[in-house]
């Protein structure tokens, strides 16, 4: 009975006893979830337009962050460095389209996946060559991002502390998601993106240039990567370790569906909040450290019941 109590009753008793602490945990999870969602968003963009699982999204985050900080270290003012980092992502997108996507057009998906793995290692090498392998401090203040924190007092006297940078991350993520949704649904290029995702031949026949669309998609994913790099870098450092953290986007994508932008956001939040609550309230039972694998567990269970994800397109094969 003791075991059942510690698993099913005790955690909830703890939550009820210290609601301020629970709120703090949920908020931490929410912020982590937003960052997962941002990374997942980059994956979704590319997957929607070219059906490629872009293994390199993680390193793109690192590379974008490194470019920004690296340029600043070389003496470029922060805002100019930001604009130049956007330029770097644009150049990267054009190069990927020209040297990777275009020669491999029409190849099986697995080939493209391998190509993105290759790109990952290329970018790791290039990044270390240019900026060195040391972790770098994100230039949070120089970019005009808030750094303080606000404490809210609860009825019972407890405190919930919100970092301003986290609030900014949430707001920026929201704006990006909203912007992308409008862009995809209401504009010519957005429509062209969806058209390419749907049927290459038909897209070509109405005058859509696949090359241009792919460059734009990789650029959009690059912008998302830059935003992610800034936000994540502000919380820890900009280092190559982020590349591994980016794989957390996998369970998020399984949960949200590979093709859905809202799915990426909601999937990110579920994973972020779920793993924080799991770690704090249940982690102790197995000696802690469940944060690193809980997300994959959730995704695995999810796969059994809804393989297309929460919002993914249902796959119906007509026979």
């Amino acid at each position, binding site marked *: 009975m003791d075991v059942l109590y510690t698993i099913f009753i005790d955690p909830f008793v703890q939550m009820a006893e210290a609601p301020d602490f629970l709120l703090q945990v949920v908020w931490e999870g929410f912020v982590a979830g937003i960052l997962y969602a941002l990374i997942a968003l980059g994956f979704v963009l590319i997957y929607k337009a070219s059906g490629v699982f872009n293994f390199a999204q993680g390193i793109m985050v690192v590379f974008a962050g490194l470019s920004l900080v690296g340029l600043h270290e070389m003496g470029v003012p922060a805002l100019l460095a930001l604009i130049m980092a956007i330029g770097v992502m644009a150049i990267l997108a054009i190069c990927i389209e020209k040297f990777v996507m275009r020669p491999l057009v029409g190849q099986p998906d697995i080939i493209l996946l391998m190509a993105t793995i290759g790109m990952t290692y290329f970018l790791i090498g290039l990044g270390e060559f240019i900026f060195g392998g040391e972790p770098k401090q994100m230039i949070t203040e120089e970019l005009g991002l808030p750094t303080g924190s606000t404490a809210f007092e609860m009825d019972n006297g407890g405190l919930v502390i919100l970092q301003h940078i986290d609030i900014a991350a949430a707001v920026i993520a929201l704006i990006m998601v909203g912007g992308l949704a*409008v862009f995809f649904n209401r504009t010519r*290029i957005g429509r062209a993106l969806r058209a390419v995702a749907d049927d290459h031949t038909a897209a070509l026949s109405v005058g859509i240039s696949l090359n241009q669309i792919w460059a734009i998609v990789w650029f959009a994913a690059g912008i998302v990567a830059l935003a992610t790099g800034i936000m994540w870098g502000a919380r820890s450092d900009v280092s190559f370790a982020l590349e591994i953290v980016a794989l957390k986007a996998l369970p998020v994508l399984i949960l949200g569906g590979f093709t859905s932008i809202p799915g990426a956001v909601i999937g990110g939040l579920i994973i972020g909040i779920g793993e924080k609550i799991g770690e704090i309230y249940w982690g102790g039972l197995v000696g802690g450290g469940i944060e690193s694998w809980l997300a994959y567990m959730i995704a695995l269970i999810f796969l059994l019941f809804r393989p297309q994800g929460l919002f993914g397109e249902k796959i119906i094969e007509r026979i």
Partner: protein
Amino acid sequence: MNSPAAHFSLHGRDDGLNPGDVLLDVRNVSLAFGGVKAITDISFDIRKGEIRAIIGPNGAGKTSMLNVINGFYHPQQGTISFRGEARRRMQPHAAAASGIARTFQNVALFKGMSTLDNIMSGRTLKMHRNFFWQLLHVGPARDEEIANRRKVEEIIDFLEIQHIRKTPVGKLPYGLQKRVELGRALAMEPDLLLLDEPMAGMNLEEKEDMSRFILDVNDQFGTTIALIEHDMGVVMDISDRVVVLDYGRKIGDGTPDEVKNNRDVIDAYLGVPH
């Protein structure tokens, strides 16, 4: 004509050509995939304002011919002149930009998108505001969107598909999908419209509707049309001239009556051994 279409126009560009002038000229085109010859030394022309049918038994090279014309395939030999400009290699989006639109044998629509969005995608080349304007989605980019949307609504009225404007096309019956695909091609305001079996798999009533739309498009907008079709009744009814292919070669070319009485054509259809 009393159709609502009388009030709007989908004329292609003013290219100085008069009806009856050669719009597209195919000269000695050959196409092979490895050792398999799909098209062998074919020449024919399409004149402005006409409905030109391409017929022939299965595997005759009809669809390959369309694919050559709109740039999906690049022939090993021969040239194609469109409005007097000769070319051999052309990318599909460049063909689209020069005024060639098409539909496909097995409907190639954007299945996840609504009828409206599918037809809007045909306006891609008519919209010029760049990436950053579109990202902002204000001012000129918005005006442009609205103006093009108006044109699309007119096409939807013309094709009598108002009731399915918001329906994802994947859910539509086959006959309607074909009509949406025609709408998407029309939205490009093409000079030359290529239709690959526009009536395949349709029942009699749907075929009659589609024939009427094709004739209306040709009649009211002066659009030149090249079509592949297996229903001989329809072909003989609506086309001005017919070119007949068999085993990748041209075996007949002329008015429907001439073709009907051509010995080679009759043999090809009845299966006389070569």
